[in-house]
């Protein structure tokens, strides 16, 4: 992927990202990383000195949305964000190049000696955790006890980590870590919304071709209206997410939590209804909709499953 920064548009990344992701999905975990890195996806936001493209989060957004659409099972959003956060550290180059892969434990902290909700931890090299004092710490996963949590997703479990003898590879200062968390909200919202968008397309297509009583199921008003509602929510998420890329009317960055909470809820709705509309087929392991639902539910759990919306409410009340 060769490009000049001047006329680069974020949406053009989607096509290239999709090609690389599809290629990666035919390979093992490490090979997949190489493919994604070679396409510039792992280092999209990393510094140029680290072999990255040094682009803003708006360029990572379409990449991660494609990963959501295609149901990529690889910690791309974590790796690209951590590569960004590591700045000019030599570790950043290792992530941008695909040599190393990093994940992020969304709960717990180094201070607690305990963390959780890390995706693909058993396959990764490093994990980012909160340090418990506002910043973050990148840990060597070899120094961490990893326990898979298979309840929500037996094939792609999240992991709990015991950090008693964790080896810290790098520290992320508090402002960088806060900015990284904000970026992660935007990308997670993009990922789950991408998953919802793909499910909706699949479902609309299925309803348009599945014949009952001589007409497609999409001829039924109940089906049409449900699909239209799903589209509405998916568009609402999308509009909310895009908006986070700009500052507000007074030039301040916008809070990400309301949009993330809304996107998680909307994606779950779209996926649940996609499964419902697929009827018996939606309930099978063969139709991939449940993979996406599991992914959404894992992120939902990582953010306290409703606690996020409640925090948004508290923050708003506080702000009045």
């Amino acid at each position, binding site marked *: 992927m060769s490009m000049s920064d001047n006329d680069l548009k974020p949406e053009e990344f989607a096509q290239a990202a999709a090609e690389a992701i599809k290629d990666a999905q035919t390979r093992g975990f490490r090979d997949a990383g190489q493919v994604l890195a070679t396409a510039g996806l792992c280092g999209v936001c990393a510094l140029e000195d680290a072999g990255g493209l040094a682009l803003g989060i708006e360029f990572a957004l379409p990449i991660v949305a494609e990963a959501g659409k295609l149901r990529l099972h690889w910690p791309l959003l974590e790796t690209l964000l951590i590569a960004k956060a590591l700045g000019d550290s030599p570790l950043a180059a290792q992530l941008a190049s695909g040599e190393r892969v990093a994940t992020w434990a969304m709960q717990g902290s180094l201070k607690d000696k305990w963390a959780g909700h890390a995706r693909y931890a058993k396959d990764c090299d490093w994990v980012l955790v909160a340090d418990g004092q506002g910043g973050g710490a990148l840990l060597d996963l070899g120094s961490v006890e990893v326990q898979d949590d298979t309840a929500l997703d037996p094939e792609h479990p999240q992991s709990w980590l015991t950090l008693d003898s964790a080896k810290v590879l790098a520290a992320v200062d508090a402002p960088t870590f806060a900015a990284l968390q904000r970026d992660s909200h935007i990308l997670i919202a993009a990922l789950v919304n991408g998953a919802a968008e793909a499910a909706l397309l699949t479902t*609309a297509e299925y*309803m*348009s071709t599945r*014949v009952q009583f*001589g*007409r*497609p199921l*999409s*001829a039924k*008003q109940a089906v*049409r*209206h449900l*699909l*239209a*509602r799903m*589209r*509405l929510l998916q*568009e*609402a*998420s*999308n*509009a*909310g*997410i*895009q*908006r986070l890329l700009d500052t507000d*009317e007074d030039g301040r960055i*916008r809070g990400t939590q*309301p*949009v993330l*909470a*809304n996107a998680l*809820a909307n994606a779950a709705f779209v996926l649940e209804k996609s499964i419902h509309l697929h009827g018996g087929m939606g309930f099978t392991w063969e139709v991939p909709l449940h993979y996406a639902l599991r992914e959404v539910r894992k992120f939902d759990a990582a953010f306290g499953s*409703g606690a*996020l*919306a*409640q*925090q*948004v*409410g*508290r923050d*708003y*009340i506080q702000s*009045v």
Partner: protein
Amino acid sequence: MHIQKNPAIPDAAAGPAAYRQYARQWLGANLPEHMRADSVNYRAPSLDECRDWEASMYDAGLAGMTWPKAYGGLGLTLREHLVVNKEVGALAMPESVSSIGKELAGPIIQTVGTEEQKHLFLPRILAMQDYWCQGFSEPDAGSDLARLRTKAVPEGDSWRINGQKIWTSGAAKARYCLLLTRTGTVADKHRGLLMFAVPMDTPGIRVVPIKSIDGKESFAEVFFDNVVVPDSARLGAPDEGWNAAIRVLSIERATNRMYRAWRFDCELRQLVAACKSDPQLARLLGDGSYQRRIGDVVGEIDALKGLVERTVSRMMAGDKIGARGSLTKLYWSECHQAFAGLALSVVSHVNPRSSALAQRARQHFTTAYFYSRAETIYAGTTEVQLDIIAQRIMNLPKDLQR
């Protein structure tokens, strides 16, 4: 016609930020306290007070943003229109008392009117000199125009009109009616539809008010009994006018009342502030179920603002907006209606010993709750919007593709 402009109106070339700053300051400084729905000093403004307020907003360069200068507008873009809408939404000011003129008659006349009609009607709408009412719906037709019965028959240089309209909002105060008729018979269904600008003082017009659920009498039935208008009252040729109007309306649906997303935010702030002002209601704000629901609403408002801003970006970039206004209308109406239910459940805790701000919120949100029942009905019901999204945005087939 000479319009006295406020000399402080910024040049559009100064950019949206300057316009925003100006709009915010002007509105904050000039909106009378008693017209602010979130003020303890609120009292329902009279029609004339509302008219004067809107006229002064127009004089201040905060109305008619995108209308051509030739017809009294500012000739600016949707970007400035949005900037002003955000600031209008941020203050709890009354709804426009001339929305039919500004959002319906004005845009349609701009599209299908003669040059003479444009000069005659448009500046007076912006300057709040004429109210308009809308004569589309009929008792037995609703959204099914194939059943429209009001008939216009040519008589020399005039037209003779007979029929009955319903849901004619603002008929009592209106100087003109934007009237939809048919030139043939009901058997013609969608053919031969013809629009007029009918002066409401024409003999043969009778207005019967309808009291609505929120206690107001803003709707009416209007009877047309051998009403004769000159051919100059005709807006476009048969069908041509109406078909153009349909296209205009789909753009209007996407661009008018953009302030609603910001007003929604303003109402949520009013509700929370009212609770904070009263010890008993403040306890609700500490309750997880209200926190959760307020959090949901905040997320919905953000998405709604995003939908509005995206529409403006796309239209500024020259994209056709098509049916996408349906997304915004539907999302707003359903989220806002649900919010009105939440607000009602909050203000149901208000009693005579509650704070003045809580009492004000009680009045405001109880009325808002009843009024919000209409939000999923007017300007295309929820079911109509869902049909549009399925048909025109998702292109879902109704029959087997051969």
